């Protein structure tokens, strides 16, 4: 179960990061909805990984 949780968080960060990197060349005004989505996914993925890391340490 833990592996699935980590994979979901990593997938979210990879996708979020990819969206941001690919959208930036088109300008913020043109792609703001996509940029918000990418940043939100990046932030949520990172937050989730951080949470899982803390949870894992507490378990040990």
């Amino acid at each position: 179960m833990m592996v699935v949780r980590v994979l979901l968080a990593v997938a979210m960060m990879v996708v979020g990061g990819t969206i941001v990197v690919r959208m930036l060349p088109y300008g913020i005004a043109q792609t703001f909805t996509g940029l918000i989505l990418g940043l939100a996914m990046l932030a949520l993925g990172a937050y989730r990984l951080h949470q899982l890391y803390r949870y894992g340490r507490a378990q040990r």
Partner: protein
Amino acid sequence: MSHHHKPELRRAVTPWGSFSWGYSDVGADIFVGLGLVLGAAAGASNVAFLFAGIVYVCIGLAYTELAATYPVAGGGQYFVTRGLGDIFGFIAGWAVLLDFTIDIALFAWSCVDYLSQLLPIVSSSDHPWAHFAVTVGLIVGLCLLNIIGVRESTAFNGIVSAMDVVSETAILTIGFLFAFDPGLLVHTMQHSWPSPFDLMKGTSLAIVSFVGLESISQAAEETQRPASIIPRTSIALILTILIFALAYSNLALGMHTWHAIPLDAHGHAQLLWQYLGNNDNNGKAVALIAAQVPYWGAIAAFYVPILGAILLLISANSGVFGSSRIAYAMSSGSLLPSIFQRVHKRFRTPLASLLVFTGVALIEVVFAALPSLSPHMADAYAKHFNGESGIDFLGDLYAFGAATSYSFVFVALVALRLADPLSPRKFKIPVNVPFTFRGERVEFPVIAVFGFIGIVAILVFTMITHPIGRIAGPAWIVFGIVLYLLYRRRKRLPLLRSHKRDWRSEQVEILRRAGELELMDQYIANVKASDARAQAGGLSQ
């Protein structure tokens, strides 16, 4: 037996259970909302989802705070009754009841739409009678399931919600990594930007994708230690749903399809968003977009319609669950007759509520199905309601009910912050302005004001752009108010004013029953300190 216990709703929902009650309700919304919004807001669908999504985050935060502070099954109507009084509480609860009955009807309807992707015999356009019969059968079946009990369905919700989160993440990940083209997104937004009227219509429909937070506050009463669990589960829920909705809408506008898209009815080529948003496909848009994703689409084409159908069925089930529990709570608060409070002796579920509100959902399905079942009715709908289809009819009412009840919830949040500063709030909406009000330190929630403006804007958009929503929605509210006044007169309760309740002892009882004993002690201490301050103030004068 001399000792008589009043039957109560049993506590059976775990943290994951409470997330999945919410997820299976709100998470399924995108399966219905995506096609409807693409059909209305075209190249600005992502903007419509973003606007509705921001409002939804504010609503979600408001619900999280209120449900964690007052973990009772009433949800929105309880908060509004407590903050603004009985009549407003009734209107908010009645609007939510409309939404839950629509939830049953709309999601059972869409469930059959998704099934029709694999079983064309139940397609609403080709076999309307079969579609109608299966929808009715599903609703009756769900009613029976709920009469039997809650725990069975909670476990099932959990498994399907987990499968759906993994599946949607896979579809969106592969779609964005291999088929998404930002240039195409920008091009679509520039060349297919809708008229202001269509953008308003799309935005009001986008809120359909975010309805259902009520169910998490419904589950609060049945969750162990709700003050700690509810904020965690509902914030996870809000973010998951927001990201999925934004992701699907951006992907639909900017994805290169893996297979050729069929020509439209006039033999013209169409883009992905046009294909997903047309009348034949808008009920099953997520299944169609999943099938267009590279590699994974080959498998997704088969399982997404099934997964979507199951999730929509669970969402319809959340409607059955939610409406019965709201009616139970409204009845406990003397807003509805006591028959809605009666719990079945053997199964301990509210039988009368389940039967009545499932019955209302069945009537709504009949109204929604009429244009496809009878050409005569189709003409009447075309003449009076701009030719709205069955799914539009349900979508209109859904948006109206949600916007109405959520508007009240924001006002109630502010009112409760001022009127009840003593209740411990384990979670508070961020950004507050502290000041002193009637001798107590209170905090004014700034975000609630923005949320209120946003949701009222969506309510206005709904009234402007939906011919059925603006007639049937207010008609439902007026009908409810008449029933309410008759009931209150019969019971010799104040008609427009609230009857007196001891909120302080009720709050202690709520926290005790929820198992939040630390918060209960804190509340009692706050009340004592406040009384002492008031007494000291009185003596010094």
